């Protein structure tokens, strides 16, 4: 299992944080471990990482197929704004059967439309996805800005229905524990895993990302596969946007600003190769978890948060550098074997 290493990294980090994170006195007056307690593991790591991991799943699928998506943060923002815009018109006590499907449908619809636009440009104009998504990132962020006069939603005097926020995505069975975003994240990762490993469509991603020309000569509809990949990534952005809208009860034109880098970083740390053909759903989850663990570690150890960007950045560079090195060594070994 190629993710075994990441699991070891996570266990090692967790061990270090448990040992060196110290203890705190909780409100009941008990001394508890600062890192290794349910409220921190669930409320401080797994729940806040949900939106990132869902988007990382979408981006991983794109990267496996040899693409890249830097517009995901802007699409996520547009999806969240769309969901909040529609849901703020529901009465505060609107039933869940109306609000939850509406929230998902609106956000996923926006995500899907935006990503299909990206995909169509990439496929029909044969432009590099980096350039296309760079351009559309700016366009989508601009739409966020101009479509919301006050830059933040819900509008003054309006609120989102409780059935979508307090009783769903903000639902707290115990104080400080909000499990719904985390459960949705696990569902998305499970769906991604099944798609990538157990469906023909998923395996086609690897074929296109591994060698596009070979995939074309073997009869695969490369353009169609790329479009499907972008559509799935848009769907992931839409789901993440819904989670954000319900978890924070709002969205603004700045939502997700700069998150694309974090999401791509999570995918890469999780083992997705930027040259395509490699990556897994579990890797996307674990990559996000590694980054979130580092961020949480900064809180737990009471370091200045400014160090988190240095450590995360260094981990990303190292991940890619070691990836390239191991690939180079593997090729050298196989060349030696043939000789």
């Amino acid at each position: 299992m190629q993710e075994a290493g990441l699991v070891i990294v996570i266990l090692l980090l967790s061990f270090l944080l448990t040992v060196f994170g110290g203890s705190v006195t909780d409100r009941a007056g008990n001394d508890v471990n600062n890192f290794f307690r349910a409220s921190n593991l669930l409320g401080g790591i797994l729940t806040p990482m949900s939106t990132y991991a869902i988007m990382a799943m979408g981006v991983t699928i794109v990267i496996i197929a040899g693409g890249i998506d830097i517009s995901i943060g802007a699409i996520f923002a547009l999806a969240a704004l769309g969901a909040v815009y529609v849901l703020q018109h529901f009465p505060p006590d609107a039933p869940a059967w109306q609000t939850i499907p509406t929230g998902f449908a609106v956000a996923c619809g926006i995500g899907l439309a935006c990503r299909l636009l990206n995909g169509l440009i990439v496929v029909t104009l044969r432009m590099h996805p980096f350039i296309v998504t760079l351009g559309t990132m700016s366009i989508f962020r601009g739409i966020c800005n101009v479509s919301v006069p006050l830059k933040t939603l819900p509008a003054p005097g309006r609120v989102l229905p409780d059935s979508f926020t307090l009783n769903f995505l903000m639902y707290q069975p115990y104080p400080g524990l909000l499990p719904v975003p985390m459960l949705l994240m696990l569902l998305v990762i499970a769906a991604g895993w099944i798609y990538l490993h157990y469906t023909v469509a998923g395996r086609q991603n690897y074929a296109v990302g591994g060698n596009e020309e070979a995939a074309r000569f073997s009869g695969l509809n490369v353009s169609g596969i790329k479009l499907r990949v972008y559509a799935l990534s848009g769907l992931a952005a839409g789901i993440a946007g819904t989670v954000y809208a319900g978890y924070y009860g709002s969205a603004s034109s700045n939502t997700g600003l700069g998150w694309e880098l974090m999401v791509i970083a999570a995918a890469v740390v999780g083992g997705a190769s930027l040259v395509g053909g490699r990556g897994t759903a579990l890797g996307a989850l674990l990559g996000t978890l590694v980054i979130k663990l580092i961020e949480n570690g900064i809180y737990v150890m009471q370091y200045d948060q400014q160090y988190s960007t240095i450590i995360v950045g260094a981990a990303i560079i190292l991940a890619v550098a070691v990836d390239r090195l191991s690939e180079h060594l593997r090729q050298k070994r196989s060349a030696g074997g043939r000789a």
Partner: protein
Amino acid sequence: MKRVWMIAVLVAAGLFGVAGCKKEEPRPTGGTTGKRTIKLGFVAKSQDNTVFQVAHAGARAAAKELGPKYNANVEVDIRTPPSEDAVKQAEAIDSLVRAGVAGIAVACSDAGPLTPAINRAVDAGVHVMCFDSDAPASRRFCYYGTDDIDCGAKIMRELAKAMNQQGTIAILAGNASAPNLQARVRGVREELKKYPNMKELNDGKGVFNHAENPSDAAEAWKTATRTNPSIQGWALVGGWPLFVKGAVDWDPARIKVVAVDALPAQLEYLENGSVHMLLAQDCYGWGTKSVELLLEKIVNNREPEGRRVIDPLKEVTKANAREVGGMWNKWLGR
């Protein structure tokens, strides 16, 4: 496997390395015998803004000074994100609650994502107040800072005086989603209606937003001025472009400027005549007063009447610029 081991080693080395570099706050020491320890959280908008660095200094100083008054060891855990990010602020509030603080003071970059986090903290028994930028729909017990509508109106009044109540004005307004800045813009516009010979650029479309960092602000300001030669007065509802040198490259006699805040860098513009007046907010007081309000609530269960404590703006002109500069040196420990 080699790859992941290397990542693990790097991450571990990073964490240990940072441990050797710097810690923001000392760990709890247990305190003096007989005194209770009160832990407070402090979350400003960003670490890269001098006004919040001063607020941090104020909070630390107040914790030291007010401890004996409340017979407590007061500790302040500062969790301000490196740059403006409301989601990071919400995460910081959640983490402070988990760390067992008794009270939190927060300046909201965006009230939307912060309101649920503040309410969660209140549900967990933590007293939360806002300073500088409010989350009025949340269950925070009070707000300390500027009355933003009044601030906008005052900027406009001073600008009108400087422009002899005639001419075209524009508004530089920072982050468009910050509720305090939106309110200041409203204040400017309301006051402008009182001056029949004055108008907003482009028939009410004279607001320019920008990322809240000095270089972007200065660039946006210069570009707007260059491309709109009819501007005769600028209402700066935040002082960002004046935090860098060389932000004014036009004839100061032609365009009048009134701005919020009076940081050391801004005082130079006042002294060389590029800016007519600065309206200083009590940035140090954001720290000291917030700590005091939190302690009053935690120890004596007292909260301010009306739940809003308004800090009056201090007028800073050429005449008192040096005096204000001296205060900054004291606050920043220079």
